[in-house]
């Protein structure tokens, strides 16, 4: 984990308040594992509002065309409030503070080879962010990712080309039916799990709490391991302030609060008390 003043390389407007922010951050780019995030000070001056840094998942790690070495960070930013608004208003060349990589990412290891056949990746809107690096690392372990990518409308399904270029199966869905299946993203997932009643599937989800809760329920019904990437308001991202917790249950069913910034953001869905949303 490093704290660096980094420069903005580019900000691409993806529509529907989504932006692809590229940072020049070679030192940090080398350390990234899928599911990790960075904390950005959303403004050049560290003394100004918003005071607290904001967490953003690393979508991709661009590499140098010449050396092939990681040189930057691609972040998918959805503008929702003051922090994200200020962030996307910055210009290429401007600097900001970037702390990371932070957090516990997805559990992808060589043990999965031959034991896990299929990985269901479920994304709700900007929840797509951690799934690109995940899909790549799954492919590297010979696991076949199937992406369920849902949103309110077609405009919310950003960066589809990245996944399509990976050549993986993708099932799109939109609530208004403007693209893919009409309805929520968990419908095609349920359908898929019904038609693929097998144990060598892993489930990975990122999106709104309600969506992840439904994905957890489906996974549990089908006895599948499921990892989710959680959201919480953060103070420090260092495990120090205890501001970012999610209510969990330990082995004895005793409640305990785990820190999304250090114990997460990716957690096994069985740990979580799904009745208590952290936001």
């Amino acid at each position, binding site marked *: 984990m490093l704290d660096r003043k980094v420069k903005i390389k580019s900000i691409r407007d993806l529509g529907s308040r989504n932006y692809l922010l590229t940072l020049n951050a070679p030192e940090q780019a080398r350390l990234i594992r899928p599911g990790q995030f960075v904390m950005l000070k959303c403004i050049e001056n560290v003394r100004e509002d918003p005071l607290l840094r904001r967490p953003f998942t690393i979508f991709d790690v661009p590499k140098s065309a010449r050396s092939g070495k990681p040189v930057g960070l691609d972040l998918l930013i959805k503008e929702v409030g003051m922090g994200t608004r200020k962030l996307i208003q910055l210009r290429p060349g401007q600097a900001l503070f970037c702390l990371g990589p932070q957090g516990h990412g997805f559990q992808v290891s060589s043990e999965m080879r031959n034991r896990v056949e299929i990985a269901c990746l479920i994304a709700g809107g900007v929840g797509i962010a951690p799934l690109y690096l995940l899909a790549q690392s799954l492919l590297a372990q010979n696991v076949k990712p199937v992406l369920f990518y849902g949103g309110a409308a077609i405009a919310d399904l950003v960066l589809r080309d990245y996944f399509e270029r990976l050549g993986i199966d993708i099932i799109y869905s939109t609530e208004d039916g403007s693209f893919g299946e009409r309805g929520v993203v968990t419908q095609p997932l349920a359908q898929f799990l019904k038609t693929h009643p097998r144990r060598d599937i892993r489930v990975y989800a990122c999106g709104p709490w309600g969506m992840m809760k439904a994905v957890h329920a489906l996974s549990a019904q089908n006895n599948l391991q499921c990892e989710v990437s959680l959201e919480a308001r953060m103070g420090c991202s260092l495990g*120090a302030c205890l501001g970012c917790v999610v209510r969990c249950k330990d082995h004895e069913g005793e409640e305990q609060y785990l820190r999304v910034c250090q114990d997460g953001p990716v957690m096994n869905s069985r740990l979580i008390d799904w009745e208590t949303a952290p936001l």
Partner: protein
Amino acid sequence: MKNSTNKEIAKGPNLAVDIAGVRFKNPILTASGTFGYGLEFANLMDLNSIGGIVVKGLSMTPIKGNPPPRVYETASGMLNAIGWQNIGATEFVTKKLPGLRNYEAKIVVNIVGFELNDYLEVARFLNDCPGIAALELNISCPNVKKGGYHFNKDPRDAFTVTAETKKASRHLPLWVKLSPNVTDIREFARACQDAGADALSVINTLVGMAIDVKKRRPRLRFLTGGLSGPAIKPVALRMVWEACQAVRIPVIGVGGIASTEDALEFLIAGARAVQIGTANFYQPDVSQRVALGLQEYCRLNHIDDVNEIIGSLQPYE
């Protein structure tokens, strides 16, 4: 401001301060609850650069804390309602303290309790643990439903808990951390001094609230939370000044400090040292920067000893 000789300049200004017989290499400390158990920041700054670390409030046995959401950002500040989640004194001493002993920063342990006995138990236990420089009695946390905070509603309660904990603290100096949510902080300052407190930390957070107007729901599940950050600095500075007028024991300034200039305001108002809280979250090495900045300030202004600054507020002509 004495004129320093060349020799003195060469060795640099003295930044060390004494609080109840304990020497801090400089008056910059980190505030409880905002710096974890210290080690979380070891990769991001030099823990040898600051005078001390006040660790997260500890109870004898672990506390789970409040349900989330626990934090919310406000104008130049933040609300928190952590609710004393901590690993417990035993685990702190076995798992964290050994690592902390490698650094020059003095370790002060903030202690919390729902009832008087909780404070006494943890105070007694920590008195036997080498590597701790002082205890900070937190009677002022607004984020628990019973105990703690209530000791800071009436000066007589503050007196009692201070006097009893002082007895339980056989070797370690006892600092008492006061709440700003009172009509007159001087009464509490004097009560704690009379009860034997060795120093006062002023202030803890102001009680605040925020509402999500879309959901018509409190932003914090605990309903209210403690307000910290630059927003509260003027209130903290005023209370530090009032406390300094009211007592002879050292006062440690806390509240909204985020720069060398902020730290200087508190020292000039009379604080013997300062603690940096919320600023650690958005600038993890801020305490090191402020410690360096203070040294620079003394150099530039030919101040040999930081103690010359303390309480140097000038009246208007």
